[in-house]
């Protein structure tokens, strides 16, 4: 097994530095020896060597499904700490204590925008019940929460944010197809900017396909992905709102 330069990392499966990954994909090729060779060639092209085809199955004429274990030859450096993307998470009590300095509750308004019917993301963050035992923002003394649920048009979300003088807009994007979530998010930022409200509102998005990098690229202040708990979101909101207010 080839080793890689010190300081680089690659996937771990069984032994340090083995680089083993699992791939699963469908090729639009009739199930055949040619399909197998095409899958192996594809692995090689993307830097996956020693492919081991664990499963190969015809789905329908002309389409073959593969599950392959292979070794990733590339390694990467662990990226530098991203100051804007990482912060110390606080407990609910700590968040409430920090925001007590504001003298009023922080008004947040949240919704799943676009036409996806899933409300689990926004519900997990905002509803009293929260997520995996971590209560949502409604449980905090320091937040005043409006949860509009799913399928909310950006127009309605923004209009209500203005009407209620919200401090932050939280947008959830769960199921997406053909990058529709990016369109929904970009449209909201454009609308907020067109209304001249960008400096007044903290814009935060979340969902399985959202990363802090993507969020900031789209013009949001922060983005949260899978694995986020309500107190992570609350910590960010509290820290950022107090920072903007000039309180350390």
């Amino acid at each position, binding site marked *: 097994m080839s080793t890689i330069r010190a300081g680089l990392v690659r996937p771990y499966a069984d032994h340090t530095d083995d680089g083993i990954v699992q791939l699963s994909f469908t090729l639009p090729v009739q199930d055949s020896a040619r399909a197998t060779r095409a899958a192996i060639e594809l692995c090689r092209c993307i830097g996956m060597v020693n492919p081991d085809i664990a499963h190969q199955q015809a*789905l329908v004429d002309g389409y073959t499904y593969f599950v392959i274990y292979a070794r990733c030859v590339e390694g990467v450096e662990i990226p530098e700490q991203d100051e804007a993307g990482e912060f110390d998470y606080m407990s609910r009590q700590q968040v409430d204590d920090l925001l007590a300095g504001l003298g009023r509750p922080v008004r947040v308004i949240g919704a799943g925008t676009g036409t996806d019917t*899933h*409300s689990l993301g926004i519900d997990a963050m905002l509803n009293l019940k929260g997520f995996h035992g971590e209560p949502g923002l409604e449980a905090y003394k320091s937040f005043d929460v409006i949860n509009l649920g799913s*399928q909310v048009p950006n127009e309605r979300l923004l209009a209500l944010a203005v009407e209620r003088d919200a401090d932050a807009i939280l947008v959830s994007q769960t199921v997406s197809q053909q990058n529709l979530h990016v369109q929904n998010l970009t449209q909201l930022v454009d609308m907020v900017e067109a209304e001249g409200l960008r400096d007044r509102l903290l814009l935060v998005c979340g969902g399985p396909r959202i990363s802090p990098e993507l969020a900031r690229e789209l013009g949001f202040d922060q983005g949260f992905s899978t694995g986020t708990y309500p107190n992570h979101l609350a910590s960010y909101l509290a820290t950022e709102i107090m920072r903007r207010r000039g309180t350390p």
Partner: protein
Amino acid sequence: MNAINIDPHAVEKCHRLATKVADDLGNMIECRTTDSIERSVLRLLGVEGACSLDIPLVNHVVDHVKERGSLSHGVATWVGRAMHDTGLDAQKIAEAVSRGELDLTKTSESSASVAAELIEKQARQRLRELGRAIAERRSWRAEIGEGTAPLAYVLTATGNVHEDIRHVGAVARAGGDIIALIRSTAQSLLDYVPEGLTTEGYGGTYATQANFRALRAATDEFARQRGSYLQLSSFSSGLCMPEIAVMGVIEGLDNMVNDAMYGILYRDINMTRTLIDQNFSRTVSGHFGIVINTGEDNFLRTVDPMDGAPSVVCSQFINYHLAKRSGMTPNLVAVGNAFEIDPSVPNSLLYEWSHALLTRQLFPECPVKYMPPTKHMNGDGYRTHAADTLFNLVSVATGQAIQTIGVPSEGTYTPHIQDRVIALGGSSYVRTAARDLSRELTFRPDGIIVTRARTVLQQAVEELERVAAEGLESAIERGAFGGVRRKRSEGRGLDGVHLKHKDYFNPFESLLREGAAV
């Protein structure tokens, strides 16, 4: 079937209360019509296609009559007179109206009764033709045979009908029983049915007549190849609910999702509009023997199933009696339920088992439809597949008639082509492995499963008492279903509701109830 001992008086009481709810609502429904019902009448009379601006002809004609303040007589009144005056058929009349060449309300009144007879004759003729085509399909279906319960109901939702057909091929090969063409998101809010083949929908493919036809041809071809029937389903819902029911009949669909409550709660469609639409769409589906699936499963995504289970039972009874009132027989009413309890709840499997068994036992004649876990599925496909395996087990062990297949990509992507095949592999394994499990089991009378079923039923009786006292519309306003409140004066589509004139005429209302086509 392994039965649990539930109080027959409570069941009888549920039926009595739900009958009252349906009857009270029936009085509101029967003296009104809607734009979409009138467009359905035209579709039933054979009007199809769109003008050069892609506006469906049925919209042209109904808007034309509506603008002249005459829709309360029923569009059939005016088309009948025009037929009598011009000697043209409904399609030609619609085309003339769309070109601005004919004013339907300036037709001769003296001929009213002759015109009505003319339309009625046409209507009978059309129903006979449609009925014959469906009867032929049914006999082919019986000949070729089909899968056994629980039938695997699989969604396709690529947004491109040609891609959908590839996915359907994979489902057919992997043993799926029912293909459901998921509509593009938000089609339910369109007050017209788009035309033509869809190649760029989001979250689904438009329910259009051309898409239905293409999918129907594909499912029939795959059925012939594999030697067993493949059912086709779509969504008779939204603002065009009854029109889609008619299109389904015309194109030979077998099954339709059909529940006004979904549109009211989750699409903000006006309750009056959609409850009236639902009635006519069910009369259509009932006549032609098309199974409808109701959407109680959706409530469990917006309320905790441990709290919301009684509202599911309550709605199942109401849907059952509304459907019956619309002319459907119980064998066509697939009341809905779902496996949505938070997996971190201890004994969640037992509670799911209890809910599933209760539904099955309350509606023995209905082809109950059971939905997989979605709400707590977080994108970890292995975890979702494990949850789906328990769901599959409960489906088989409690004798569900139709089960929607849960896919590992739930909560992240609309399913990729391999996801459905993986899912069908899982359900087929469980179906085989646990085939006769239900006959082996008896339940402790004081155990968790039986106690839970009794509690849910008791709470459902109490909820039905409230709903029967206040009426379904007030109950929706109170937020009794899915935790969502909607007002009867709000929501989309109310401007498409019309009180019937005393001379209102729709020949299909009575003809469709004269006896089933198949």
